[in-house]
């Protein structure tokens, strides 16, 4: 695989790890604690912030060429995986209203693509600045 494809794969892997870590937090909160405790509400924005930029930063850091587009791809595909995974795992059941699900999927993919593209630009800049 090319360096760019590798960096996209690494970014996507990181995105999936963050999604699954958030799912673990969700399970821990609802099954062990019996309801969402305060650390769940605090953990949510932290994972959201991480998912918004960290996979993109990783992509931009690993490969400067076409960093913005690679970051957008990682964010877009990652956003799709996130919404579909959370739907399947019942974290955010959307199947009851299919129209809403479609809109949510598109918006999640677009916003995630936007923030991760910015993350990729930042990753490329930080990598250049380090050298």
């Amino acid at each position: 695989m090319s360096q760019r494809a590798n960096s996209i794969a690494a970014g996507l892997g990181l995105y999936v790890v963050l999604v699954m870590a958030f799912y673990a937090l969700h399970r821990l909160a609802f099954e062990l604690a019996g309801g969402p405790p305060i650390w769940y509400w605090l953990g949510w924005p932290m994972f959201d912030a991480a998912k918004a930029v960290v996979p993109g930063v990783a992509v931009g850091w690993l490969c400067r060429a076409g960093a913005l587009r690679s970051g957008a791809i990682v964010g877009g595909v990652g956003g799709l995986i996130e919404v579909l995974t959370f739907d399947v795992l019942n974290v955010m059941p959307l199947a009851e209203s299919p129209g809403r699900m479609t809109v949510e999927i598109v918006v999640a993919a677009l916003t995630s693509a936007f923030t991760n593209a910015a993350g990729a630009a930042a990753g490329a800049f930080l990598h250049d600045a380090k050298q």
Partner: protein
Amino acid sequence: MSRRANAIAAGLGLYVVLVMASYAVHRLAFGITGGPYPIWYSVGWEIFDAAKAVVPGAAAGWLCRTGAVRSGAIVGGIGGLIQFSAFLTLGVLNVIPFSGAPGRMILDIVVLALTSAFTNAIGAAAGVFLHDSGSSMQRA
């Protein structure tokens, strides 16, 4: 004011505009429909959230390269504090039972400021990268 201070002020101004725009969406959704929130509300909220996460920082980084990451973090941190205070004052956060848990409010403020500082610092680095890329393309 120095160029860096101007960039931070511009980033903060942009953050406040985005906060007020998301408040307008909130008012429009709950003031007009009065019932369960419409789909465009959650869509608009997500878009504003994504914008608030990186755009003010990117503006700060675009306007001033020096100490861009720190400037972005300052914009995000202070912007997050402004956002929380504004939403609390304007009743956007009424659904959260802060009165029952005053400690939660402090923790929420700290987490919001930290996460916003983090994403906007990344946004600022992106702003510098895009500015540099644009400059080098113009030179070429």
